[in-house]
């Protein structure tokens, strides 16, 4: 039996930012069933719908670029798939784009290696854009940025963030509220969480100590080849 695969780009908005990755998967599965979309299931005792993600999004983050592959048993037009699924998805989750791809295409998880984020922060005191830019510049000049990562059921691990930060830029500061964008390594070869970058930055500089992260937004996931970025739709 030959199946079909659709690659999609999905928005996870503020309305659903507290649902976990697993809850997100279940929500999709149930929406697929309500929409009567012919999703393929795994074989075996415990059949699972064939849905695969690029990279799990942590709780409380929003995203405009969740890439998800759906394996279908029927050849469904991507536009129809998008419309039918969107009708059944709760507010806050929306399929932006869907494209037919070969069933045997490399998995999203294996190709994605970079993620971009926009972080809104609230500082303890007022700051100018120039001041923050200077701090970030100093931060990036460091040879290494060591952090301790806590791991569930395992011992803590020390790692160097610096080589995994591809870029870090100040978008702007207004009073105590600043916005920072970053491009960091994502995936099995090395993974950085945006919170870790902010915490490391805060640790370095007194003035922005313990800023409150108001919102972290995933703006993109990419396949980075040298200095070029490609989206999962461009492979």
């Amino acid at each position, binding site marked *: 039996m030959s199946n079909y695969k659709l690659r999609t780009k999905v928005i996870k908005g503020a309305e659903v930012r507290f649902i976990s990755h*697993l809850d997100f998967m279940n929500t999709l599965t149930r929406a697929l069933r309500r929409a009567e979309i012919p999703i393929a299931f795994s074989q075996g005792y415990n059949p699972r719908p064939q849905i695969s993600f690029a990279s799990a999004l942590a709780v409380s983050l929003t995203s405009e670029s969740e890439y998800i592959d759906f394996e279908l048993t029927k050849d469904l037009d991507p536009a129809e798939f998008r419309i039918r699924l969107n009708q*059944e998805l709760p507010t806050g989750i929306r399929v932006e784009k869907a494209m037919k791809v070969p069933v045997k295409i490399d998995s999203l998880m294996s190709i994605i290696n970079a993620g971009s984020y926009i972080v809104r922060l609230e500082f303890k005191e007022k700051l100018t854009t120039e001041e923050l830019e200077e701090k970030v510049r100093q931060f990036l000049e460091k040879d290494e940025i060591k952090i301790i990562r806590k791991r569930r059921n395992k011992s803590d691990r020390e790692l160097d963030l610096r080589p995994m930060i591809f870029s870090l830029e100040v978008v702007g500061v207004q009073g105590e509220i600043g916005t920072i964008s970053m491009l960091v390594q994502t995936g099995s070869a090395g993974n950085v969480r945006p919170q870790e970058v902010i915490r490391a930055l805060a640790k370095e500089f007194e003035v922005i100590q313990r800023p409150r992260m108001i919102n972290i937004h995933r703006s993109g996931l990419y396949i980075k080849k040298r200095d070029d970025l490609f989206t999962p739709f461009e492979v």
Partner: protein
Amino acid sequence: MELEDRLEEILPQVTNPTRYMGREVNSIVKNLDEVEVKVALAFPDVYEVGMSHLGIKILYHLLNQRDEVAAERVYSPWEDMENKMKEEDLPLFTLENKAPISEFDILGFTLQYELSYSNLLNTLDLANLPLRSKDRTAKHPLVIAGGPCASNPEPLAPFIDLFLLGEAEAAIEEIVDKYIAWQNNNYSREELLKDLATLEGVYVPQFYEIDYDENHNVSKFEVQEGIKEEVKKRVVQNLDEAFYPEKFIVPYMDVVHDRVNLEIARGCTSGCRFCQAGMIYRPVRERSHERIKELAENLVSNTGYEEISLTSLSSGDYTGVADLAMDLVDEYETDKISVALPSMRVDSFSIDLAEELQKVRKTGLTFAPEAGTQRLRNVINKGIAEEDVISAVTDAFEAGWRKVKLYFMIGLPTETEADLQGIVDLAKKIANLGDEIRLNSDYKRRVSVNVSVSTFVPKPHTPFQWSQFNTLEEINDKIQYLKDNLRGKDLSLDWNEPQVSLLEAVFARGDRRTADLLEQAWQLGARFDGWREVFDYQLWQKAAQKTGFDLEEYACRDWSLKARLPWDHLMLGVNKDYLKEEYDKALAAEKTNNCRYDNCSNCGVLEQLEARMDLLRGLSNE
């Protein structure tokens, strides 16, 4: 700042923020300014427990069918959220509109277990409402409660304006209608309550004055002029015609029963003498196969759930259960939707059926012999013989099941050491049997037999309502006996905390004086008493001391067969004479037949409620 915006700031700081988020698929958010009556439906436990409850689902969708009514949900915030809400001075709110509970017209609680009472008080407090009914006025919501614990609601009498006995979907709309009439006519709160008290099933405790003597017997029972002396529960006569929701809310987070729960029947005639549900949910009524299939189809297409669970108190008794289950399996197999049938009696028929339903995935099987010897099983009228259990587990092991869970109770009336030894013997026999079958089969994995022991708590409106509750020392000795003797390969033992059972026993048969104890314990910080990791017995002891209670003395006291019981004015259908007769037969270890298959046992429910047993193919003895 709007409550919703403030919530956005708090939620990242608490565990499981989804509990407080709402916005689930199929939840109903109305404009509260455009309705006449706002009802908050409260389940006094956390979201994932409360969201699994069928009763609230029924009432939520039934009430929301009416344009002039908005029904919204509220659950207990976990401790971290409660602390945050207090820090931020945030009142308790509903999930739909994030509206403060205090702005609602009616606040309805479901009382599923006694250990949720402290959460009920906490709900009132977090909603900024006075705890006691007498301190609330017409500007506060009308506080009502129903569910199984409303069959003895006396411990909550001072806190609740009215209790609804029986099946709430049969009466809730009448309550709402009377409320609307009251709103339009603007008469006093007391007149509203008097008017509501005329409805069958409605119990307004403030109109009943009850006092007790030093032996805890009812010494005074006075009913206000014009108020009925006895309150009779309400029932739905025909399940096919009764309302059943078809658009269940689909939670984001994993809740306890995250599936299509489809109730196939109500009531049970097995007549187990310890079982409150078996007594208070009579008569038995079955939903037709056609209606169930129709509901299944609509529920699956509206929710997208991957499992349909056919629920009732005793599914094996349901007429044509195998046909129904197999029809559903055939219908939904290709969509990868599974069909589950919990609450099956242990017999070979149920193993065959379970095998069909589970196909290849053989998770655990649960058996509930309840008592270790035939004598004690006769006492409790659990119609199950050891041969039945043995042949059923043999079939199960042979069919490849590896995990068996056995439920037993300790502290049952007339229990002796022989009965405890009976638990040990039966469990060992089953474990040995499993190992033997394993060695003669292709299954490599060892079997596991888990014995789960709970302490028997006497419940109102059951034949054991006069039974003594064991002392803590007795319970501890019995658990120790099992720990010492129930050892061996493939065996494991679980038991619940005796002090938790003691507290349950205090409130299950508690009278109005326990209200002070409850309020005191809540004030000292009691919350989530049914949660092992939260329950704090010392706190309850302190509360008991302050209010002049001896918890153990109160829970373990003798009960007189002649005295008026604190809940005797509440009629749940079965006669007190029947319960007494059953109690006598229990002490003589005599069984009573299941009236579904045999003669009527004269429990009185049909006469009292002018109801009938509604079986799909009629009674077998008709």
